[in-house]
C-alpha cells in the first residue's frame, strides 16, 4: 500500500473529508462503518499527527472485513481486455508467473458516499470486474545491483529502484508504487464477494414499486387531511450466487417518499409505511379542488451475508416507484339542516 493510501498510515480510514484519490480507502470495512453504526463523536479515535500511524483498531464487536481483507496483495496481474468504459480489465491471480518481477496490491476504490464512482459504472461491461486502485512493488532479482555484491548480470526488464543490500532474491522491497486504476477480475482469488459486487447484484434484483392507499379513497375534500398508507411488503429476501458464494440479500425500505401532486407541498417523507384511520401519521391537506396525481417512491437498503456468515451493509440504495393514482379533491358545500329532522 502506498504511504498516501494505506489505512495503516493514518489516512483517517473513512474520513469523509479525504479525497477519493487520497484514500485507498475505502476498504470494505469502511463501507460498513459509513452505512452501519456510526461511532458517537466521543468515540472518534484521536487524530494521527505522526508520519506513520498505527493501524486503526476496529470498533468493538465489528465483524471482519467483508471484502476479504482489502487492500489485497496478489502475485500476478494480467491485462485480459477492456472494461467498459473505465479502462483495462485485469485478471488477478495468486499464481506466480515466471519470471516473477512484481507483486501487486489491489483495492476497490468506488466511494459510494463521496460520489466518486458507482459500482458498475466503470466496469459495467467487464464480467466480475471491480474498479480498483492498483499498486506495484518490485521483487529483488538475481543480478540486481547490490552495493555489497556488485552485479554480475544485467538488471531485469523494468529498471525500478534497486533493492536494499542483502535483500533475498524474490523478496519485495520498497514502498508500493502507484500503477493506475482499472477493472480487476478477482474470480480466481479466494476472496468473498466485495460490497461493490454485492451492490451490483442488489441493483438488478426485481425490487417492486409499491402501490398505496388513501383515505378517503380516491376522493379528497378540500381542507380535510388525506391519509396515505401502504400495506405492501416492505422487506424482502433474495439469494444470489457471486463467484460460487451464496449471498443472501435482506432488503428493507429506508425511506418512503409520498408525492402528493400538490405544488403547495409536493412530497411527504416518512420512515414507515403509514397507517389508515385512526392511526394515520402520513397525511396531506389539499387546499384547492382538482385532480392530483400521487405516487409513492421507496428507498431500499440491504444487508447481506456470505455463505451464512456475518451480516454487512450493502453500500448503496435502490429507489423504486409504484403506480400513480389520481386523487379527486372536491369542495364540500355547506348545507343547513334541521337538527330535529
Amino acid at each position, binding site marked *: *500500500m*502506498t*504511504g*498516501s493510501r*494505506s489505512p*495503516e*498510515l*493514518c*489516512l483517517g480510514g473513512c474520513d469523509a473529508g479525504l479525497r477519493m*484519490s*487520497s484514500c485507498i480507502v475505502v476498504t470494505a470495512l469502511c463501507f460498513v462503518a459509513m452505512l452501519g453504526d456510526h461511532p458517537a463523536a466521543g468515540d472518534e479515535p*484521536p*487524530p*494521527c*499527527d*505522526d*508520519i*506513520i*500511524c*498505527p*493501524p486503526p483498531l476496529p470498533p468493538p464487536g465489528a465483524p471482519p472485513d467483508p471484502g476479504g481483507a482489502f487492500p489485497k496483495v496478489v502475485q500476478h496481474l494480467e*491485462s485480459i481486455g*477492456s472494461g467498459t*468504459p*473505465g*479502462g*483495462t480489465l*485485469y485478471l488477478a491471480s495468486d499464481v506466480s508467473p515466471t519470471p516473477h518481477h512484481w507483486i501487486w496490491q489491489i483495492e476497490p476504490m468506488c466511494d459510494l458516499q463521496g460520489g466518486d464512482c458507482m459500482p458498475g459504472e466503470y466496469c459495467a461491461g467487464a464480467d466480475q470486474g471491480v474498479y480498483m486502485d*492498483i499498486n*506495484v*512493488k518490485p521483487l529483488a532479482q538475481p543480478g*540486481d*545491483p*547490490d*552495493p555489497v555484491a*556488485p*552485479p554480475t548480470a544485467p*538488471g531485469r526488464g*523494468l*529498471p*525500478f*529502484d*534497486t*533493492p*536494499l*543490500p542483502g535483500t533475498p532474491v524474490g523478496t519485495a*522491497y*520498497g*514502498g*508500493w*508504487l*502507484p*500503477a*493506475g*486504476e*482499472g477493472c480487476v477480475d478477482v474470480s480466481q482469488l479466494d476472496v468473498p464477494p466485495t460490497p461493490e459486487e454485492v451492490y451490483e447484484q442488489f441493483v438488478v434484483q426485481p425490487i417492486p414499486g409499491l402501490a398505496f392507499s388513501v383515505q378517503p379513497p380516491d376522493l379528497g375534500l378540500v381542507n380535510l387531511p388525506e391519509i396515505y398508507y401502504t400495506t405492501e411488503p416492505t422487506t424482502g429476501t433474495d439469494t444470489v450466487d457471486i463467484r460460487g458464494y451464496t449471498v443472501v440479500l435482506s432488503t428493507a425500505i429506508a425511506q418512503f417518499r409520498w408525492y402528493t401532486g400538490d405544488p403547495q407541498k409536493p412530497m411527504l417523507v416518512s420512515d414507515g409505511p403509514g397507517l389508515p384511520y385512526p392511526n394515520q401519521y402520513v397525511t396531506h391537506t389539499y387546499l384547492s379542488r382538482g385532480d392530483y396525481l400521487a405516487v409513492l417512491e421507496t428507498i431500499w437498503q440491504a444487508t447481506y451475508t456470505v455463505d451464512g456468515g456475518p451480516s454487512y451493509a450493502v453500500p448503496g440504495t435502490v429507489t423504486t416507484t409504484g403506480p400513480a393514482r389520481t386523487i379527486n379533491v372536491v369542495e364540500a358545500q355547506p348545507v343547513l339542516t334541521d337538527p330535529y329532522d
Partner: protein
Amino acid sequence: MGHAVGRLLAAALVLAGVSVASGCSEDRVRPSDTLPPQRSTSAGPTPTEDPPGATGYPLPEAARAYTPEGARAFFDYFIAVLNASHLASDPVPLREITQGCEFCDELTQRFQEAADGGRRVVGGDLVLTAVGAATMRSLESGAAGASMSFRLIQRASQVLDTAGSLISDTPELSADGTIELAWLVDQRDWLVSLFSLDAQ
C-alpha cells in the same frame, strides 16, 4: 479506456533509469542526526535568487549534484526537513521541497491540522536504517531524476494537547519505502515527486 495502461507505462517510465552499482559503505547509509545550521538573515550579501532547498534549511552542497551520491545526500536532507516540519507542525518547509508528491501533500495537511488544533508532537522522528543504491534516469530523457528504496523507523512519539495532556501514544514503528526525486537542471536542485511508505 487506456488510461490505466497509460499510467502503468507512465509509472514504469517515471521509474525508468540506469541501475547504478555504487560502493556504499555503512557510513553512507547512516542518517544524519542533525539539520544543517539555519541560514543567517542578517549577514552576507543580498542573494539574487532564492537559495535551493527549504527556507531556513540550506541545502548541502553535496546534494546539488546529479549523481547517486547527490541524490542520496538530498534524501538525507529531505528526511531532516520532514522531521523538522513534523516536530514543529509547520508544513511550509516540507511543501517547499516537494512537488506532485501525494503523500507529502497529505503530510503537510496533517501537520497543518495539528498546528491548527494546538497539538504538539514529541518524538516521532524518522531515522533511515537502510538505503538502496540510487537508480538514476538519463539526463537526456527530459525527466531527469532518481529513485531509492529504503527502510526506516519512526521513533516512539506522543501527541499532547494545548494543556500538555497526552492525546495519543505511538510506539516505534518501521516501514519500507521508495522515494523518487526530480532533478531541476537549472537550479542544480531536487524535488521529491514520490514518497511511499509501507508500514511493516
